[in-house]
């Protein structure tokens, strides 16, 4: 379903990825500095590999040889960052709706209701990001990415900045998303504990190198 071949050379880092994913929920595991975020950035189009190709369900997002490089905003890849990145000037509801602006209002409303229910965001809708706790912000970030109906959802260490108590609060929501939402997911983490609660299919990355077919 997802095929990624990418090389990227930087000053002190070299990415060498050769990955074929057939399961819906996959994890990327590796220590800090291994290149996890770099790989996600490459997939999302934020970083440009020196060579390779990226295909999702046969659609080429990037192909160095054929000179295909679809811009970020057209790749339909949802990204949940470690630092939530909620828009501070918009309410929670408007943050959620941000990625869904292209959809018809009825569809948008339905999506909002479903996600709000799934992640229990009802009481937060009118608030502004600065009023939320760390865990709440991550839930909103997750919901926002889902609302844009991406073809692939990537989560870059979403729990890393939360304490143990919050982590255990959010994990159920992640599980729920992994089980109930029919979107392929790549979950990135340096914690095997988190990963094993979500999926059995794990690729390992170390020193920029990840070769896997799972």
């Amino acid at each position, binding site marked *: 379903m997802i095929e990624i071949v990418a090389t990227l050379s930087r000053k002190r880092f070299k990415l060498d990825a050769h990955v074929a994913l057939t399961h819906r929920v996959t994890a990327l595991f590796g220590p800090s500095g291994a290149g996890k975020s770099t790989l996600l950035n490459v997939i999302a189009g934020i970083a440009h590999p020196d060579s390779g190709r990226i295909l999702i369900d046969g659609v080429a997002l990037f192909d160095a040889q054929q000179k295909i490089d679809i811009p970020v905003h057209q*790749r339909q890849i949802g990204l949940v960052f470690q630092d939530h990145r909620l828009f501070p000037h918009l309410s929670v509801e408007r943050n959620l709706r941000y990625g869904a602006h292209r959809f018809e209002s009825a569809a948008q409303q339905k999506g909002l209701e479903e996600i709000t229910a799934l992640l229990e965001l009802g009481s937060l809708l009118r608030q502004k990001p600065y009023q939320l706790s760390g865990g709440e912000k991550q839930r909103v970030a997750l919901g926002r990415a889902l609302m844009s109906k991406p073809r692939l959802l990537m989560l870059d260490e979403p729990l890393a900045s939360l304490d143990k108590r919050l982590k255990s609060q959010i994990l159920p929501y992640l599980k729920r998303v992994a089980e109930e939402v029919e979107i392929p997911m790549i979950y990135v983490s340096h914690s095997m504990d988190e990963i094993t609660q979500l999926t059995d299919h794990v690729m390992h990355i170390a020193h920029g190198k990840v070769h896997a077919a799972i």
Partner: protein
Amino acid sequence: MLELVKFTPAELTILLLSLKVAIFCVLVISIPAIATAWLLARKSFYGKSLLDSLVHLPMVLPPVVPGFILLVLLGRQGWIGKYLYEYFGISLAFTWVGAVVASAVMAFPLLVRAARQGIAQVDRQLEIAAQTLGAHPLRVFFTITLPLALPGIITGLILAFSRSLGEFGATITFVGNIEGETRTLPLAIYTYTQVPDGDIPALRLVILSLLLALGALMLSEKLERKANRHIEHQDD
């Protein structure tokens, strides 16, 4: 003492002309200045530092220099003005439009600087996040960058407005000091100081200028506070 507040119709005309020129000046430069600010804040390209220097030039030159350059370019016998006059009958000297042009040149760098600062401090990660949510770069600019850069941009707009109100050197060099057309507040004050019995009217206009400047500063502060409250992000 009372004569210091009795403004004559001529003086009100001067005030209205100054306000008109300043408002049009800000309108004319807003979009180009914000676009330039964005370019300088976000993009790197060949010739960027040249552009940066050109933009800042009016700020470091004595105002009569840009005024003279405008004359050479846009005067009736100017390189460009020649054709403007021959084919379109457009002549900028002695017109309030020319005064707007002079103000625009002098105020442009001020707005670019302030807007650039405002844009630069917008977290780029937010812009990237917006793109991953399907927002076209232009949409990112209008829905994320611009609103978050607003306090800086507002400061810039008011600075530009005030600069235009105070513009003297470039204006008098380029479009002269014509009553009702280009005689803005500073030029009027200057004219009154050159004429016997002009001290009281000059003083009245000076008081007016002070009030305008104070008003602009207070408005700028109020608007900035309001914009910041709307953004309201605590550093986390």
